[in-house]
């Protein structure tokens, strides 16, 4: 893979997802592209690159973007965040809403571990009802998320054994999320660079470990979009190491830290606004 190949790829991926493709990750890119070439019945990575330089179709561009995005995740990733959601954020949001209905968006949910973790958590919270929407750019990830099928390795990362017994059924060589949990999540393919308005409003948005891979301009765009989708007393959760540098006036850090943010002033975690 030459630097000029990497440039072509970076341009495709950047334009379609805002993701920055680090030039020093050519080896990783090549490995991932080999899988795409195979799936597209192309003889190899060189042929794929040739096709990308010629007149690539939508489907091929999607497949390449999809393959080059990092979708690594685990159940209950960064446990202290889930503890905070369970103990403080969700009860406060539910308490301020009729029927305890909290609208949640798991933005960039990858293979579904995050929304499923939330659904498991909420099942044990009396008075909290989640209206759970999960989106990702990757068709491949969403397909796996919807199926709710995870390998033995995946279910042993982050998931307590009691939760595995309770929420999964064993298939021949994998573990499948029980139907009641699969039905608790609405899945949607969505590009965070697109207009978010049609998605509606949310009380809780999780967009973790996404911004860190985006170009600054894309980060700013996404943060503005998310601010517009958040209820006045809503909470945005970023990855533990992510900040709102590109939109400093749009959010303020919520008490408890851990990548939790609220809209500035008017309302916050401690004083949820009631009514509309």
């Amino acid at each position, binding site marked *: 893979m030459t630097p000029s190949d990497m440039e072509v790829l970076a341009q495709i991926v950047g334009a379609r997802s805002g993701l920055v493709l680090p030039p020093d990750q050519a080896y990783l890119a090549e490995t991932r592209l080999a899988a795409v070439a195979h799936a597209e019945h192309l003889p190899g990575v060189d042929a794929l690159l040739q096709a990308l330089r010629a007149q690539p179709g939508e489907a091929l561009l999607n497949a390449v973007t999809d393959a080059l995005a990092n979708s690594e995740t685990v159940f209950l990733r960064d446990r202290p965040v889930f503890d905070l959601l369970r103990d403080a954020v969700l009860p406060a949001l539910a308490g301020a809403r009729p029927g305890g209905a909290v609208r949640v968006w798991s933005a960039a949910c990858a293979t579904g571990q995050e929304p499923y973790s939330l659904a498991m958590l909420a099942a044990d919270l009396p008075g909290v009802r989640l209206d759970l929407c999960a989106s990702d750019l990757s068709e491949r990830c969403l397909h796996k998320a919807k199926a709710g099928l995870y390998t*033995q*390795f995946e279910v*042993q990362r982050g998931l307590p*054994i009691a939760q*595995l*017994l309770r929420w999964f059924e*064993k298939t021949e060589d994998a573990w499948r999320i029980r139907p009641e949990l699969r039905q608790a999540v609405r899945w949607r393919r969505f590009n965070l660079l697109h207009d978010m308005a049609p998605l509606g409003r949310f009380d809780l948005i999780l967009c973790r470990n996404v911004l860190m891979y985006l170009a600054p301009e894309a980060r700013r765009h996404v943060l503005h979009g998310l601010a517009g989708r958040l209820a006045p007393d809503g909470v945005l959760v970023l990855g533990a190491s992510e900040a709102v540098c590109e939109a400093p006036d749009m959010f303020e850090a919520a008490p408890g830290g851990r990548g939790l943010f609220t809209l500035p002033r008017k309302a916050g975690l401690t004083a949820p606004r009631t009514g509309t």
Partner: protein
Amino acid sequence: MRTCLIVDDSRVIRRVARRILEALDFQVEEASDGAEAMALCRDRLPDAVLLDWNMPVMDGLEFLHALRREPGGERPIVVLCTTRNEPEHIAAALAAGANEYIMKPFDGDIIEAKFAEAGLPFGRTA
């Protein structure tokens, strides 16, 4: 230093597990079946036990039942580590007093995650 007893009839598994647990700052002892493990436990109770199920002489679940009846035997954190991966096996182990459950094959990340889950978080050696 915290102690962990590895109980497995495979020397290879014991060696792999020992390397992982020592890196997590455990002082490790080994036993190749439940009876041997029981003798070691009567001498000194470990903080944790990584326990295989299928073993000659005394299997993992028999050992677990016996351990939990010993004076102080409710204290050690016991993590099953076995190729048995049917839900009814897992349920039986939990009912017998296992704190966590690992399905083989495992790696360092899984051991670390499961021990933390069972209440043994660690500072890793630098």
